[in-house]
């Protein structure tokens, strides 16, 4: 049986852990607030941008390198995870979704190319000896728009020079503080059929100013940037949300453990007192005789 001292030591240890998880929860909560505001502000912009692109992509078939439809050979999967752990199933869910997508395209005999954002995805694919085309680490928390442009430009470039023929982006979409939803969204090519279904405006013919080419040249790459930015913001807000609830659970579990151990400690203390009393009583009885 555990001695009194052992139990006491464990209680202290659990208390320390609880303090840490509690602090981490607070930190995550404040980071979440920041990330969430940014993301919520960005959402309408990204949605509207998508709408415009959807409306005009039907109008410019083949006009811009990003609109060219070509036979698919290589499918690129951009996986967005966090850099740090301790955020529940956040990364596991993403990696599972990515793995499923990769498997599906492998079975259809496509080449797979993988880019990662976040250390967790990097480590995951590295451990499995799966080649990574490109990686961006250390973005979460201190991401700037220049970082986003780097990621977007790399995707655009590899699409234009035909290294990849289709691009998916896999990320956690922020649903609420406690719920995330993994998303596998197609980033490129912008296909006419899909956009028509989404908005029903594909048949519109626009007047363009300054010129159609000019607008496409500006808007299409910008749209990729915006969509990547949005995915990264969603992922960050989700990460902090996931971490917050993971840490809250951990704190609760620690509380439970402490009360269980305290009970055990008291029982053991009582038992030892009883035992001592018995010893004394036994000793007195023995002296009487």
């Amino acid at each position: 049986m555990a001695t009194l001292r052992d139990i006491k030591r464990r209680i202290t240890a659990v208390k320390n852990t609880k303090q840490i998880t509690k602090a981490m929860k607070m930190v995550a909560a404040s980071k979440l607030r920041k990330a969430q505001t940014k993301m919520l502000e960005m959402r309408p912009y990204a949605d509207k941008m998508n709408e415009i692109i959807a409306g005009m992509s039907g109008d410019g078939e083949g006009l811009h390198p990003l609109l060219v439809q070509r036979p698919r050979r290589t499918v690129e999967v951009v996986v967005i995870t966090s850099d740090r752990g301790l955020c529940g199933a956040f990364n596991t869910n993403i990696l599972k979704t990515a793995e499923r997508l990769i498997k599906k395209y492998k079975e259809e005999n496509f080449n797979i190319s993988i880019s990662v954002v976040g250390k967790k995805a990097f480590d995951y694919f590295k451990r499995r000896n799966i080649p990574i085309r490109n990686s961006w680490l250390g973005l979460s928390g201190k991401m700037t728009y220049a970082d986003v442009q780097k990621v977007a430009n790399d995707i655009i470039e590899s699409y234009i020079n035909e290294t990849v023929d289709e691009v998916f982006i896999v990320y956690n979409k922020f649903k609420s503080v406690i719920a995330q939803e993994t998303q596998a969204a197609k980033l490129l090519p912008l296909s006419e059929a899909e956009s028509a279904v989404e908005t029903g405006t594909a048949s519109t013919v626009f007047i363009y100013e300054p010129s159609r080419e000019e607008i496409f040249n500006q808007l299409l790459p910008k749209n990729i940037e915006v969509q990547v930015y949005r995915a990264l913001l969603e992922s960050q807000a989700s990460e902090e949300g996931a971490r917050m609830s993971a840490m809250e659970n951990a704190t609760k579990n620690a509380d439970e453990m402490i009360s269980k151990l305290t009970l055990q400690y008291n029982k053991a203390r009582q038992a030892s007192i009883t035992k001592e009393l018995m010893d004394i009583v036994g000793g007195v009885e023995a002296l009487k005789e």
Partner: protein
Amino acid sequence: METTNLATKLKLEIVTPYGTVFSEEVDEVIASGSEGEFGVLPNHIPFLTTLKIGMLIYKKGSETGYFFVNWGYAEVGPDKVLILADSAERSDSIDVQRALEAKKRAEERLKQAEKYDHARATAALDRAIARIQVAEKK
């Protein structure tokens, strides 16, 4: 032609990366396109343009509103005007003092052409002037 369901109002939406700035039904919109100012009434033909730094005016009954718009795109449809701007401010939320300071700074910088990026200074000056103009309208 669809003469039966002509739109009578325009849904004006101004959206920036920092949130939706404005979303209401209006009667008329005037904006600064890269090729010049243009006005939109309901049932405009689909039109897509880039916007330069400048003023956006909307009319809704007797009410007139002014916005400062900093680059962006405008998508015009028969019953809507969608503005995607890098940033946008309503005339009454513009910090005039700050704009005046920015204007002075930009002018200084333009004088010392060799030390500062000319294009950036010009854009800053344009922004400051447009902000001041819009702010005067309230």
